[in-house]
């Protein structure tokens, strides 16, 4: 073992999911899923239909709340099913921002242009932020002596105007650079219906990146696409791989998982049946279920 791998295995995991369980009525979909992920890693999740992959991603994004389990991110406990107090909507939204999700069906907002799709959430967050600052200033003015208030008001107004234009500029700049990253700069004023599926999915990726999530999740990002369009989307996802972008990709594209993932998890019937490096899982699968699944997915190819 080299120094580097030792350091890596001993570093506390960036993401730690412990014993996630989720049932819908009588149907237990996740039966105790635990895994860890380091910062900058790409995790590929494979598995047959109905195994619970989508449910797992939805639980990570708090679209579903697990019945059991805990989640740690960067050492912070983000979720624990044992917490008795009901978390507020605002708190759930805050937690969600740690994760991004790219849907199978893109789910772009049809009434907004490409760039507005990417900007919307940022703009709304900036507005909240601005309102808070404004309120803080107003409170400061109320506690200031009367004779100073008008002067303070003018100063505050100036600062607030600067903040607002600063926000606007930052958002626009970020949006343009994201569009460039997904290769759609020239489509920024197009509406979603004017784009191909592959282009729509690339916009959806840019939209998810706009809030700089700690972990970006993809739920079969190419399975709603015509085969000739999957390549461009996979290429973009591959291009996102870097030291500080951590990704979880549910995929049926075995080649992609092999080439891009650092770690692969095979989920069957709500349990992790096999996990390891791509080489371990694809070349030397231990479990019979994994072997059968891989054989079947190979057959489908030919």
């Amino acid at each position: 073992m080299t120094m580097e791998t030792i350091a890596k295995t001993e570093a506390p995991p960036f993401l730690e999911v412990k014993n996630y369980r989720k049932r819908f009525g009588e149907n237990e979909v996740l039966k105790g899923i635990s895994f860890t992920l380091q910062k900058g890693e790409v995790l590929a999740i494979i598995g047959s239909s109905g195994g619970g992959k989508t449910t797992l991603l939805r639980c990570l994004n708090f679209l579903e709340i697990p019945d059991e389990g805990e989640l740690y991110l960067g050492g912070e406990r983000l979720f624990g099913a044992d917490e008795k107090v009901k978390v507020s909507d605002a708190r759930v939204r805050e937690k969600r921002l740690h994760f991004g999700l790219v849907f199978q069906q893109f789910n772009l907002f049809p009434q907004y242009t490409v760039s507005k799709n990417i900007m919307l959430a940022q703009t709304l967050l900036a507005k909240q932020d601005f309102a808070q600052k404004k309120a803080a200033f107003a409170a400061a003015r109320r506690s200031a002596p009367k004779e100073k208030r008008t002067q303070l008001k003018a100063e505050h107004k100036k600062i607030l105007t600067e903040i607002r234009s600063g926000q606007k500029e930052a958002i626009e700049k970020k949006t343009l650079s994201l569009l460039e990253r997904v290769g759609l700069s020239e489509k920024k004023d197009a509406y979603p219906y004017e784009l191909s599926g592959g282009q729509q999915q690339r916009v959806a990726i840019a939209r998810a990146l706009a809030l700089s999530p700690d972990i970006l999740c993809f739920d079969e990002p190419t399975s709603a696409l015509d085969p000739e369009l999957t390549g461009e989307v996979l290429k973009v996802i591959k291009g996102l791989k870097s030291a500080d972008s951590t990704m979880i990709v549910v995929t049926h594209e075995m080649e992609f998982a092999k080439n891009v993932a650092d770690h692969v998890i095979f989920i069957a019937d709500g349990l992790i049946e096999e996990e390891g490096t791509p080489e371990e899982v694809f070349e030397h699968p231990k479990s019979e279920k994994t072997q059968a699944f891989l054989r079947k997915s190979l057959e489908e190819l030919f």
Partner: protein
Amino acid sequence: MTFWSIVAELGEGFLVSCEIFFITLIIALPLGLAISFGSMARWKPVRAVIKTIVWIVRGTPLMLQIMIIYYAPGLLFNVRGINNFPAVIIAFGINYACYFSEIYRGGIESISKGQYEAGQVLGMTKGQIFFRVVLLQVIKRILPPMSNEIMTLVKDTSLARIISVIELLFVAETFTLRGIIWPLFFTAVFYLAFIGILTIVFGRLEKKLNYFKV
């Protein structure tokens, strides 16, 4: 009586019809939204109550509702009832709110779950998702059925005549008692003109929302 003096009298009746039309819209458009939220409420008793009300209101003639609201307080409880115009407004407001609520509900439920979820994972609040993401798509979807319903309202205003609100048809009828029949036919000109304008307005609105597809 000259032609123009009769038309002027009809015009006054028409203004009352317009009043009924616009006040009803002002009440029923937002009230309908509230009712549609009620009919989709998570709490079952609320849903049941709202659905029963909508069933009763849509299941009985508007004319009957007008008469009940006008006569019932006096005859059943021996209290002084309301005047005829407010009675008409209450009946129309509730009736149309119920019809609108079903159109709204259909529109809201036709928006895919994915739109809400996309908003959620982007950290939006429920209100932001409704107003920034869903609403315009709903409006686009419900514009055709709404324009139908609103055109029906134009013609339904004539029902107010049953409790002697002096609207267009009521005025025209007074002339028949004096042996002049043509004003009755002439009312159609007012209704047709109004519907014509609405057709143009809704056509424009639909065109305006044509820039995107849902």
